[in-house]
């Protein structure tokens, strides 16, 4: 990471309020409140928090799955706060920021062979570079560790880890500058999680892609991220270089999160006593 570069993503005073639709009676929910951050080329920024902290909402706003209520959000200088209208915009955005979902089961279409899933993205974004989309797709699948015997399989014939590799391959097919990983390893077994984390590190080294890594697991965040921001109830409560924060957490909420991670000699603690 070199912070002298221009940031790819700049979020300033980002705010998202969910209001009840007409007829429903609930108070507006402030999901994201005054969040600012930058994402630089070739770095991994982690957004850490519990469910309900707004971390996923930030990621969804970034790719246009949610609109921005207030504040500014730019990717390579272009504002994304207004949401997408045209197909051409959406395609251009997709080439800049890709998204990997938490659940590798439902984020792949069960009726498409995996090579076809990837080839469709390659064709759409014209990233084949001299070969056919299918050949390019096979190459990408190879690079995420899915060799020839997997190419013609359907998602349901694969394990969770293999499916998450397919999802990562699909993201790579657009050759993006940023990949948003939304709890992308949370649902995986420990051994598979390690493989995927290594794979992500390899991809990053090879392609100089940036990650926005959404997670609640500080051990994983420590392994993969360069910088992190900690969110609690929509607000940023802590941010900085991951290794520094985790080596010496100052903010009480960060300390509580860190204390909750199981490790050698650890004992579970009740929350009332946890925050202290």
């Amino acid at each position, binding site marked *: 990471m070199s912070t002298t570069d221009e940031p790819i993503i700049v979020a300033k005073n980002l705010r998202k309020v969910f209001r009840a639709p007409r007829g429903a009676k609930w108070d507006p929910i402030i999901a994201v409140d005054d969040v600012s951050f930058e994402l630089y080329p070739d770095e991994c920024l982690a957004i850490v928090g519990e469910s309900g902290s707004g971390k996923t909402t930030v990621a969804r706003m970034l790719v246009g799955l949610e609109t921005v209520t207030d504040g500014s959000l730019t990717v390579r200088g272009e504002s994304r706060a207004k949401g997408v209208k045209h197909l051409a915009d959406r395609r251009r955005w997709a080439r800049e920021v890709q998204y990997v979902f938490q659940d590798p089961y439902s984020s792949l279409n069960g009726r498409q062979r995996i090579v076809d899933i990837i080839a469709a993205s390659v064709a759409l974004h014209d990233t084949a570079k001299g070969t056919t989309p299918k050949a390019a797709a096979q190459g990408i699948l190879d690079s995420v560790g899915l060799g020839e015997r997997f190419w013609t399989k359907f998602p349901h014939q694969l394990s969770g880890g293999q499916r998450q590799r397919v999802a990562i391959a699909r993201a790579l097919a657009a050759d993006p500058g940023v990949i948003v990983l939304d709890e992308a390893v949370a649902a995986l077994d420990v051994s598979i999680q390690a493989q995927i984390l290594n794979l992500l590190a390899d991809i990053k080294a090879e392609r100089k892609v940036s990650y926005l890594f959404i997670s609640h697991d500080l051990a994983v965040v*420590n*392994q993969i991220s360069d910088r992190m921001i900690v969110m609690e109830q929509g607000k940023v409560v802590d941010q900085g270089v991951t290794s520094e924060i985790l080596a010496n957490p100052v903010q009480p909420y960060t300390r509580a999160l860190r204390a909750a991670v199981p490790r050698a000699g650890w004992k579970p603690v009740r929350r009332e006593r946890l925050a202290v």
Partner: protein
Amino acid sequence: MTEPLLRLDNVKATLRRRRSEQVLLNGVSFEIGQGEALGLVGESGSGKSLTTRAVTRMLDPAFRVDGSITFDGASVLGMNASALRKYRQKDVGMIFQDPRAHVNPVHSVGDFLTEALVRDRGVDQREAERRAVALLDEVGVRNPEARLRQYPHELSGGLLQRVMIASVLLAEPRLILADEPTTALDVTAQSDVMAILDEQRKARGLSLLFITHDLELAAACCDRLAVMYAGEIVEQGAHVYDTPTHPYTVELLGARPDIDAKAERLPVLTYNREIHERLKAEAMA
């Protein structure tokens, strides 16, 4: 030592298909003593959840179960329908990974907690509610009286899991089966729920069979660990976490990222079926 509360002896579960048979549990043996907690650790497909299903006899009829499962001296596999119902109602309590899938969304929390007491134990409604409130308070649910009027969808995952624990404790079982009870929760909620489960279990002297994929978590909450691979227990005992001897356990422990030290590269499991079969053959020889 006295007779263990739950004992599995060489349990084998075979899935019968039209033209083939698949052995999904292959000679699983372990014991859980009164007041003891056993952590059954394994990855997806290792057979840990099948083991809990076998213990409660909730495996699909397509499975053939061999070996013996004894609870407090009685053979679980030999129980008739009424004995089985009594065993499931009174002796074992189950906590699941996804509490939301195991509560009726149109019943209030109060109904959910008191229903079994009133129906099966003949406790009157007011007394049942009093007990439920007391227990919710013990498991750290604030405003328990108000919670009784709420519905499951109004509670967070962590809170709902505490309600599940309370409901299991209300039935006063002797053994708790907890199948990945915290996998769907955040780390803080996980710590919280496990602490409550641990403290309530110890206070009541209950036994626990704790199913998880997280060795660290299991080590923190259990007296002994059993590590499963491919339907078999490869290693068990109190030593497993601190001084693992089986290569699979060693690798599994290494694969988890460490919060205190960033690895250059995470070690990847090299253990596979082939090594597994070879080790088994060597052990036999």
